[in-house]
Structures are given as structure tokens and as C-alpha cells.
């Protein structure tokens, strides 16, 4: 016994050192991003990869609006704020009308001027196509003779009809509205778009905290200046802060509750220490498996895994509650008494985790690995270490307590009554038929989290001011090569422009807007030569008193690195390693049907709603969770039937299965959303519920049935305490998980004595 304990202690010490070293070396990354649900691997569909890419990029972006009644003050405050943003190490790029505009304007003009002649704004192209070249000629004269003309000799010679400035103005208007200060409700607003480096979630949150503090400083110094901020990273930080507060509160209260419960029942710190050692052993085993077998673990896998190995509390309660009064030194004998039930309970849970692990969803595999190793670790801790502890049984007031015995007796006889059996049968019959209609899955990721009211308000105001935000759909362009993709984008622009003009679509950003296709550039040159130079060159020459010659450059603008570097937002619209696969961002989409109709017959363009992609991924996870749950039921049935025979095996199985069924039937009435996460909670209901039934079944014939029943009651009380606190959370996801488990476990406990039903010994246990 001592040898076994020493080996296990040595293993736990080695595991803790190994885990600490691995965590310190960054061998495993903890992912807190819901994007982890979107499969972005090499084999994933391009739509999924694109969604992942776009959402990853969005998570690195923040949008600010600096507002003031005075236009110049708004610009100056925006400049000052930009300086504080630049001082943060995570800031990669800033886009704003007041950020480096002198230099940026010059760089844009220089780069595009080298490719003049092929670049036309949409309006100019329309005019030339319709034979309306005169307004373009007159506009050129206005620009040339304006008192505030930036025209240089070289610029005028290369572009005598001043087509390039009009093209660049169009680009600035289309580049997400970040190149203009905006008047809204009589105030001037300067938009600032910020892109972060590829940093960790924690570093993003640090950045958000520093930025929030900088905004507070500005507001404190000048109440007339208002800085609004929005972006997924601010929402994520607020959500994480809220979750952290709630988890801290729940962990503190539930731990205190369980400790008090154990103290009240055992009147000793020793079982409390045993409980904590068991939980610690389980957590350590789960963590060691995670850092050894995985590169990344999602925070949801950690939370679920930690909850599942909370089952280990049941093992410890079971060990301490089954008290034989033999005194110290008989730990092994005590262990042998409960070992079959403990082992069967573990095996049942492991079947569930194995079923999860065979699903193709990475998140479920992570949960399975963490939980399986964690639970096995808790089991081994009970087996190896608890027998070494001195004997501490339940308090004297619980020994042969008539109340407890009465409860055991009544509960045991519950399913000997026909009414209870028929009622349960009716629930199963009606439940199985009604379930497909009764359950209304809602996989919408947006309803899971807690959104801070101030951030939501900020986001809505920014959307009203800039026209940005709202639904972030995009088009996936799949063409044979880059140039074909650009031409397709030009067709899309033509088709969607009427929708933009009618307000059904806020706008769109496509690479072809910034880098027209070579075909479009050649067409433009021909158009300019025929419709503008030929009829108006002489007239212009006379007006400026100098000769006018056509542009002498043959160079065309291509989507090379230099050009793309001028527009950071284009980077996200290229899908790496797939030439011809582009994205087109749709902004402020009010009418998705109109967009679909406009593009209906266009091959190679597919509209994608990122939220729908994530929701579909979650729906897929939910279906896999169903499959895993069914596999768990089948595996547990085989295990229990082989141990208890067909009748009692199936009755033992029926108890946790009824917990699952009743949770599915009852929780929608309490407003719980049925989704992947609440389906996963059913694993917990089944695993803990199975322990109740198995523990009772294992001790049905011995003198320890009341003590086993006490262990089950303690387990139920600790679970209701923990998960009842979860149900009090303001985070919808946490709240729903708590409710499902509370309802399911209560039902599983009620049905737990099914495992004892119709046993010949039943009548002998009637205390009366």
C-alpha cells in the first residue's frame, strides 16, 4: 500500500514539475477565442479558411471615433490620441484622416502616378463611356487654375486631365470611411482605425486596458471631447473580465460550501484534506496530459474538463462515507469495499470521453483528453493515497440516523410503486416521441456571451456616425487566377452599385477598387485616348499655354507587394497560397436577399456570413456531441449489463439516462437554450448520475447501503451547490450550463434507486 502511494506521489511530483516546465516554456497555448470552433486547417473548405482569416483579422482591429463640437479641436485631440496609441508596443498600423496624412498622400500619389492613364474613377469611366468628356476637361481646368492647386509640372505632364486625383479621391471614399472626418449631429468626428500585431489574447487584452485608460484620461481632461471605441477585442476583454469575476465568486462560494458540508458531515479536517488531494490529483493529471499531448487547449476545454473531474469529489465522498469503524490501518479493506463501484463509475465516464475523442472536432478531443486523464488521476489518488489517511467516518449524529434511514427506505421503494414506474415509462415514451419537436436548437454564438451595455452603445453610435460595423458578411471569390478574380470583382462592383445607391448595402471593399484588373486598365487607356485626348488635348493646350501629350508610360498597376502595402486593409482580402481566391468585404448590409439576387448567376462568387459559419460549426459540434452521447449510452449499457445482468444493468443505466432525458425536456421551460454547450453538460449529468446508481447498486446487498446513500446525497449536495451557483451567473452560457446540470442531476438522483428496484432483499430493509 505504501509502495503504491510512494510511486503515485512520485508520479504526481514529476507531473507537476513537467507541467510547470512546459507551461513556462510556452509548450501549450491557451486559446480563448471562439474562432477555435472554425476549422481552418489545410483540409478545411476555402470558405471556412477565409472566414477564419477574416475574423482573426477583425480580432486584431479596433475602431475609435474622436468627437468634438469644434472641427480643429477634434482633429487635434485625435492626433494626441493617435500618439498615445502609437506608444503601445502592440499597435501595428493606424489609419485615420489625421494620421500621417501628408506623407501618405504623397506616397499614394507617387506610386499611382507611375501607372497613370489606366486608372479611372467609376464616375469618370461612366462619363467617357457615355461621351460626356467635357465635364472632365472643365474639372481639369478648375484644378489646374485653383488657388489651392498642388499641381506640379511633372504631375500635369503625366496626367493633364487630372484623372488620377479623382481616382484617388474615390479610393479614399471607399476605404472604409477612415479617410474623412465626419459631421454628425452638429459635431465633428475623426475616425481612427487601428490594427494590432499578431499578439496573444493576453497581450490584446493588455492593449485594450491601456487604451481604455488613455480614453479615460482624455475624458477627465476635457469633458467636451468624446472618444468612442469598439471592436471584438474590447468585447472579448469585457466578457473575460466578467467571466473571471463570476468564476472567482462561484469557485470561492462552492469550495467554501463543500468544505463546510464535509466538516458538518465528518466533523474533521481530514476528509476535507482528502477531498482537496483528490481534486488536486485529478487536475494535475488532466493538465499534464494536456501539456504533453497538445499544442493548444481551448479555455472551454479547460473549464469543461475541470467540471468533469469535479466528479472526483464523488469518489472521495464515497470513500469517506462508507465507514466500517475498523479504525486506522484498514484503509485498504475499506477501499476494496468501494473499489468495484468506483472502477465501474470511472469506466462509464471513460466510455463517454472516448466517444468524444473519436469525433473530428478538435475542441471535443481536447475536452476528452483533459477529462479522461483527469478523472483517471483522481481515481488513482483515491486508490493510492486515501487509504493511508487515518479513519474518519461520518459524525455520530448520522450513524443509524432514523431520518436518513427513512429517506433511504422511501427512496428505495419509490420505483416499486406502479405509479412511479408508469410515470417514468410515460415520460420516456412521450419524451422520445416529442423530443425532436420539443427541442429547438439555437446555435447562435452571439447569445452565449455577456455584452457590456456601454460597449454595445458605443458600437451602435460608431455605426451611426461612420456607417461601419453591423453585419460583416463577405464574398468569397474563387477564380482561376488573380486577374480573373479582379475582373470578377469589377463585375460585382457594377452589380452591387445600384444596391449601394438605394441604401440596401452600405458599401464594399474589393481589391479591384484599389488595383483594377489589367484588362480594365487597358480598356481605360483606350477610352481616355479616344474620348478625352483626341477631342480635348488641343483645347487644353490652348487653355494652359503649353503642349499636352498623352501619357508615355506603358506600365500597368499590378497587385504586387508595394501596392498592397499602401492599403493595409487589402492584406486580409487575399487568401494566402491560393492565387485567384479573394475576399470582398460587404459593409452595412441591410438586405442580404437583394445582394444574393444581384449576384445569383455569377459563378465564382459566394456570400458568406461569418457568424453563420461559426454557428454552423457549433451546430456540427452539437450533432457530434449527440453521437458521442449515444455511444456513451451504448458503451455504458454493455458495461453495466455485463456486470449486473440484463435487467439490473439496464435499470442502472436508466437512472442517469433519465437524468439526461428530463434535463432535455425540462430546461427549455426554464428558458435554457439548447446548443452544443448545453448538450455537453449532459455528459456531466450522465457521468455523475451513473456514479449515483452504480454506487447504490454495488452496496445494495451489504450493510453499508445507508452510508453509500449518504455519499450519494453528499455528492448531490456538492454538485447542486456548485452548479446552482453557475445557474445564478449573468453570462447566458454559464447560467444555462448550471441549470441543465442542476435539473439533470436532481432527476438522476431521483431515479438512482432504479438500480435497486425489485431486488429480493428490498423488503428486509424496511426499518419499520
Amino acid at each position, binding site marked *: 500500500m505504501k509502495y503504491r502511494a510512494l510511486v503515485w506521489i512520485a508520479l504526481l511530483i514529476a507531473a507537476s514539475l513537467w507541467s510547470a516546465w512546459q507551461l513556462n516554456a510556452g509548450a501549450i497555448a491557451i486559446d480563448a477565442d471562439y474562432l477555435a470552433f472554425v476549422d481552418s486547417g489545410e483540409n478545411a473548405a476555402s470558405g471556412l479558411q477565409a472566414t477564419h482569416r477574416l475574423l482573426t483579422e477583425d480580432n486584431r482591429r479596433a475602431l475609435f471615433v474622436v468627437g468634438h463640437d469644434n472641427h480643429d479641436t477634434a482633429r487635434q485631440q485625435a492626433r494626441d490620441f493617435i500618439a498615445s496609441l502609437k506608444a503601445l508596443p502592440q499597435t501595428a498600423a493606424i489609419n485615420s484622416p489625421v494620421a500621417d496624412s*501628408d*506623407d*501618405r498622400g504623397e506616397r499614394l500619389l507617387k506610386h499611382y502616378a507611375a501607372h497613370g492613364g489606366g486608372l479611372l474613377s467609376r464616375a469618370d469611366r461612366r462619363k467617357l463611356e457615355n461621351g460626356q468628356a467635357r465635364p472632365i476637361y472643365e474639372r481639369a481646368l478648375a484644378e489646374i487654375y*485653383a*488657388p489651392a492647386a498642388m499641381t*506640379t509640372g*511633372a504631375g500635369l505632364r503625366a496626367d493633364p486631365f487630372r484623372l488620377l*486625383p479623382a481616382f484617388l479621391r474615390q479610393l*479614399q471614399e471607399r476605404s472604409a470611411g477612415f479617410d474623412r472626418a465626419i459631421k454628425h449631429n452638429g459635431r465633428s468626428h475623426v475616425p481612427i482605425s487601428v490594427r494590432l500585431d499578431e499578439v496573444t489574447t493576453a497581450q490584446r487584452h493588455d492593449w485594450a486596458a491601456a487604451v481604455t485608460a488613455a480614453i479615460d484620461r482624455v475624458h477627465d481632461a476635457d469633458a467636451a471631447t468624446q472618444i468612442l471605441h469598439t471592436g471584438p477585442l474590447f468585447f472579448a476583454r469585457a466578457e473575460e473580465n466578467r467571466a473571471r469575476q463570476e468564476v472567482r465568486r462561484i469557485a470561492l462560494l462552492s469550495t467554501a460550501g463543500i468544505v463546510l458540508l464535509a466538516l458538518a458531515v465528518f466533523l474533521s479536517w481530514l476528509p476535507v484534506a482528502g477531498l482537496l488531494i483528490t481534486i488536486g490529483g485529478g487536475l494535475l493529471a488532466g493538465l499534464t496530459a494536456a501539456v504533453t499531448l497538445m499544442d493548444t487547449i481551448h479555455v472551454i476545454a479547460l473549464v469543461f474538463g475541470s467540471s468533469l473531474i469535479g466528479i472526483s469529489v464523488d469518489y472521495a465522498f464515497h470513500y469517506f462515507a462508507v465507514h466500517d469503524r475498523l479504525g486506522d490501518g484498514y484503509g485498504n479493506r475499506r477501499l476494496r469495499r468501494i473499489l468495484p463501484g468506483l472502477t465501474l463509475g470511472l469506466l462509464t465516464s471513460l466510455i463517454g470521453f472516448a466517444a468524444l475523442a473519436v469525433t473530428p472536432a478538435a475542441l471535443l478531443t481536447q475536452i476528452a483528453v483533459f477529462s479522461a486523464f483527469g478523472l483517471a488521476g483522481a481515481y488513482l489518488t483515491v486508490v493510492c493515497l486515501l487509504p493511508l489517511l487515518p479513519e474518519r467516518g461520518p459524525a455520530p449524529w448520522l450513524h443509524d440516523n432514523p431520518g436518513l434511514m427513512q429517506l433511504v427506505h422511501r427512496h428505495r421503494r419509490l420505483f416499486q410503486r406502479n405509479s412511479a414506474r408508469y410515470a417514468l415509462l410515460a415520460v420516456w415514451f412521450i419524451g422520445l416521441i416529442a423530443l425532436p419537436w420539443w427541442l429547438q436548437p439555437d446555435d447562435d454564438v452571439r447569445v452565449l456571451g455577456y455584452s457590456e451595455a456601454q460597449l454595445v452603445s458605443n458600437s451602435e453610435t460608431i455605426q451611426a456616425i461612420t456607417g461601419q460595423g453591423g453585419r460583416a458578411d463577405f464574398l468569397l471569390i474563387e477564380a482561376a487566377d488573380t486577374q480573373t478574380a479582379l475582373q470578377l470583382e469589377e463585375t460585382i462592383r457594377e452589380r452591387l452599385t445600384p444596391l449601394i445607391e438605394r441604401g440596401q448595402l452600405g458599401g464594399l471593399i474589393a481589391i479591384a477598387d484599389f488595383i483594377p484588373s489589367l484588362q480594365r486598365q487597358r480598356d481605360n487607356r483606350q477610352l481616355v485616348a479616344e474620348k478625352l485626348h483626341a477631342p480635348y488635348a488641343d483645347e487644353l493646350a490652348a487653355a494652359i*499655354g503649353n503642349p499636352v501629350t498623352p501619357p508615355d508610360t506603358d506600365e500597368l498597376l499590378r497587385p504586387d507587394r508595394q501596392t498592397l502595402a499602401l492599403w493595409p486593409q487589402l492584406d486580409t482580402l487575399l487568401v494566402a497560397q491560393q492565387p485567384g481566391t479573394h475576399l470582398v468585404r460587404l459593409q452595412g448590409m441591410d438586405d442580404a436577399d437583394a445582394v444574393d439576387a444581384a449576384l445569383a448567376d455569377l459563378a465564382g462568387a459566394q456570400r458568406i456570413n461569418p457568424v453563420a459559419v461559426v454557428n454552423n460549426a457549433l451546430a456540427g459540434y452539437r450533432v457530434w456531441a449527440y453521437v458521442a452521447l449515444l455511444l456513451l449510452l451504448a458503451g455504458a449499457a454493455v458495461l453495466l449489463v455485463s456486470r449486473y445482468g440484463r435487467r439490473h444493468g439496464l435499470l442502472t443505466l436508466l437512472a442517469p439516462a433519465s437524468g439526461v432525458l428530463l434535463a432535455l425536456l425540462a430546461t427549455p421551460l426554464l428558458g435554457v437554450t439548447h446548443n452544443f454547450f448545453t448538450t455537453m453538460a449532459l455528459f456531466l449529468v450522465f457521468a455523475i448520475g451513473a456514479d449515483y446508481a452504480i454506487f447504490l447498486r454495488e452496496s445494495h446487498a451489504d450493510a453499508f447501503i445507508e452510508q453509500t446513500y449518504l455519499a450519494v446525497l453528499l455528492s448531490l449536495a456538492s454538485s447542486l451547490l456548485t452548479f446552482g451557483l453557475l445557474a445564478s451567473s449573468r453570462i447566458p452560457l454559464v447560467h444555462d450550463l448550471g441549470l441543465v446540470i442542476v435539473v439533470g442531476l436532481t432527476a438522476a438522483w431521483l431515479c438512482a434507486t432504479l438500480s435497486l428496484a425489485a431486488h429480493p432483499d428490498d423488503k428486509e430493509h424496511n426499518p419499520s
Partner: protein
Amino acid sequence: MNRRTLLANGLLLILLVGTAAAETTLISLEDDQYISGEFSLERRLNHFEAPLRSHGRFILSAEHGLLWQTEVPVKQTLILSGRSLSRLTADGEVEALTSDSDRVGQYTQLINKLLNGDWSAIESRFHLEDSGSDTDRWHKTLTPDEQGALFQRIEISGGRFVERLSIHKGSQNRDRIEFSDQSLHDGPLPEDIRTLFTATGS
């Protein structure tokens, strides 16, 4: 009054008149005042042998901005307001020629500030130097504080009104604008002119 007293009073009078003349400064336009006058612009551009010349009439309002009506070589009406430069099309519509972030927008704003004598705003981005003055004229030279600025140097001179503006853009590109026949008007802008400014959003 003896001769010495007369002499002293005479000197005092000369001194006062002289002081008054030396203090000739650019008039500060009130919101309900505007200036009208004529301009001639000579624009020298590198690679172009002949300078580009134009002349016409202008109206300057502190509240609304600058209306620039070219008569030669072509008839054009331009509206400079805040950071926006617009033109009046043949159809009577106002067409924007700037976006808020581009250099023309910044230049437009600077021109308005220069003609309004808004030196405090200009001083935040330029080094301002009084480059000599006589009894009824002043001269100022502006050099940008930062590298990569729009201009190398700006020279501006005038009396009650700005009379000459020379803008050196580098690479032999230079503008010279002369203002003449200027007069100050009390009262609001004529309705048709104000409508033009309103159409630009000013």
C-alpha cells in the same frame, strides 16, 4: 504758446502719425463682413516653358470662405471652404475636388487662413517671420516647421488687405497671386453667393 512748445507739439504729432502708419495691419473680418476684389495668378511649373496665368474676381468671407471666379483663360467658379475645394459645374451643381485627408484640402484651409490673417493658427505649423515693413505695408515669410510639408516657403505681404502671395512648392514650381481693387463690405454675403457656400456644406 512759444516756439519751443510749438516744435515739441509738432514733433509729437509727427510721432503719433508715424506710429499710426507703422501700425497698419491686415483688417480682421467680422462674420457679417466680406472683401471683394480682383486677382491675377501666375503659376510656374517645372517642365513647362510658359507660366500658367489666370485672372478674375474673388470674394472672401471669414464665416464662409473664399469664392474664386476665374475669367481668363476660362470662366470657372471655385469655392474654398474649410478643407474643401469645390467647383460650380456647367449644370449649376457643386462638385467636390478634395477629400478631407488629401493635400489639396490642407492647402485650401491654409489659403483661407492666410487671406484672413489667422496667424495664430498658421504659427502652429509654420515659423512666421516679419521680413520687413514700411509705413503702410507689411511682409511676412512662412517656413514649415516639419519636414515633408506642403511648401518650402510662403511670402505674403499687404496693408489693410493681403496684396501679394508667393508660394514656393519646390522643384521650380511656384505660384504668385496678386490681389487688387479690394474693398470691404459690411453686411452679409449676397444670397446667391451664400447659397454656393451652403451647397459645399460650410
